[in-house]
């Protein structure tokens, strides 16, 4: 099975190790993974800021980079949601292009969804010492129905204990450019999320979207918490890897 890895711009820039963890998980499950070298961003930041052209340009680019694969996988519910739910509707004037985008969207998956529902992964090599509380990122949850998939996989990590927080489904306040444009509201929402997460006394806050994780970690550190880990689910599932730096 040839799988194209869409690493996403945030992971590319901020946390390459999430990209390598994703790569490892897919390869361990027997996928032939290819990383198209010219991939960049899904276009969502511009699209949600009101620039449709950002979405259209990135949709065309995505099609050129990934159409040849059996499947495309991204370690993000947000970017996958952009592709699956919004790309085709950006081209009402071009039904042929819409058909191609729809076909590709149907083969594009968020990482945990792909591992559980397509690869049907039963075993993971990883281990994690401690308790985890899981934050459901909005796009993955509401656009793609990702809820049980990450929990099921974390349940297969040796040593990992899942400790649910109150209201895991409420938004953390990231919202892409919202977190900068309306930073004060975003900070308050992040505060509430940190509170709910810290109440569980979990060792790590884990989620499937790096944007939310940066928002949560950024608030935690500002509040002086230096110990609670904030991790992407791929890092937990793949286990610790030597830092490629």
């Amino acid at each position, binding site marked *: 099975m040839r799988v194209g890895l869409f690493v996403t*711009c945030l992971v590319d820039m901020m946390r390459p190790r999430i990209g*390598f963890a994703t790569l490892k998980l897919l390869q361990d499950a027997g996928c032939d993974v290819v990383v198209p070298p010219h991939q960049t961003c899904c276009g969502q930041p511009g699209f949600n800021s009101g620039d449709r052209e950002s979405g259209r340009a990135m949709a065309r680019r995505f099609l050129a980079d990934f159409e040849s694969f059996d499947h495309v996988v991204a370690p993000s519910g947000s970017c996958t949601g952009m592709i699956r739910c919004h790309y085709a509707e950006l081209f009402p004037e071009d039904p042929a292009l819409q058909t191609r985008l729809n076909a590709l969207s149907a083969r594009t998956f968020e990482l945990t969804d792909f591992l559980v529902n397509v690869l049907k992964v039963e075993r993971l090599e990883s281990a994690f010492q401690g308790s985890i509380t899981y934050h459901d990122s909005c796009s993955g949850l509401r656009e793609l129905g990702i809820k049980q998939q990450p929990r099921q996989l974390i349940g297969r990590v040796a040593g990992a204990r899942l400790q649910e927080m109150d209201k895991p489904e409420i938004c953390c306040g990231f919202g892409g450019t919202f977190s900068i444009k*309306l930073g004060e509201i975003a900070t308050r929402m992040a505060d509430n999320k940190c509170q709910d997460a810290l109440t569980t006394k979990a060792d790590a806050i884990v989620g499937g979207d790096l944007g939310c994780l940066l928002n949560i970690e950024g608030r935690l550190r500002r509040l002086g918490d230096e110990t609670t880990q904030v991790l992407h689910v791929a890092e937990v599932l793949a286990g610790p890897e030597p830092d490629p730096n």
Partner: protein
Amino acid sequence: MQLTSFSFKSNVRRKLIDPLLQRNMKRFGGRFVEARAAVMTEVDNLETIRVAAAAIRDRSLANLDSYLLTFEERARARGTEVHWAETAQDVNRILIEIAQANGVKKIVKSKSMVSEESGLNDAVEAVGIQAVETDLGEYILQLAHEPPSHIIAPAIHKSVEEVAELFSEKHHTPRSTDIPALCREAREQLRPHFLSADMGISGGNFLIAETGSVVIVTNEGNGRMVTTLPKIHVAITGIEKVLPTLNDFSTIVRLLTRSATGQSITNYVSMLTGPRQEGDLDGPEQSHIILVDSGRSRLLGTEMQKALRCIRCGACMNHCPVYQNIGGHAYGWVYPGPIGAILTPSYVGLENALDLPQASTLCGACQVVCPVKIPLPELMRVLREKSFEQGLRPWYERLSVRMWRGLANHPRLYALFTQLGVRVLRVLGGKKKLLHRLPGLDGWTEGRDMPAPQGRTFRELYRKKHS
């Protein structure tokens, strides 16, 4: 209602540090959310009913002109006078004409958000007519000289203690925080007004085209007093509220009350069809209805039309994490929360409410609970597109969006830029790998650190590994 939606950001700043509001919003918290979730379990085919409800609203809107004319004809046949108000000012003018023609001195009002749009109370008071709000929440706000902060629970931003202070001060009674006692006190104050008013004003949850009826869905009973005791009843509502048939209403009401307060049905559902008829025991001598456009028809036939499906349940604001933190007043007009972020710019002009469509993380919680399936995030995005296209957003925002688009569309340039950027940020992040300040990103760093990047991009690391 006075418009302050253009200063949303400073409104927000004030509300976030208002300890009383913050405490009251926390207390209110998830009460409606939990009540809704509990009562929805009674409905075993919720999704089917939502689809049907959305279809009913779409059918009503697609043929709005003919349903409205049918409504007018049937309502007139039952003796109701139908008035058409194109603008908010027209609403006030028509209402004052009716009042003055009948020598009205005092009006009792049941809740009408549409009358907030035109600032009706101030307008009638300016011509010497007293208007008394009789919904408990609206009554409290009228005493406190505050606007509503929620469409179905207008005084939700106030605590029992605040109401106790207010009543004690205005009614000259001993202070009590016992809720039933406060309700009794309000009732005692209002009863003489009901009996002495010459006119009653209500809103209208729906207009039924086939019968010419106005439907009001309420809990407190004052709605019945307002619409039957005074000799004149005037209902004021938006033109989009029409439903073709009673059968359609029976579908919609199953979702309305459950979505709103989490009740299977409210205490009162009233169908008002004309003035007192021969042989009726009660009812007004005159029945009027003012059908208000005030910006609604502009949305018809556009991508924004779906916003007119709204049945004013308030579920979107109850479930909105932004609303929960800032309350309704910050939105600066009649309709707060996600639906307000769409209706306010649509009715008062995008340039007067520029930040409202941005006031959402697009988390989608509102869309999931909307009983008529309004795609609220999508509509906010449409308004963001209009703002962007019309150049209404700040120059630096437009520039950065265009720059990012340019970079993302040129992979080599993107690689160069990101490789350089992450190295610089990594160094600036220091030992703790945290950035405390980022020029241009103050919105982030005022309240949060930015975890520093690892220092190399995935693409370059991967290339090195595989070359």
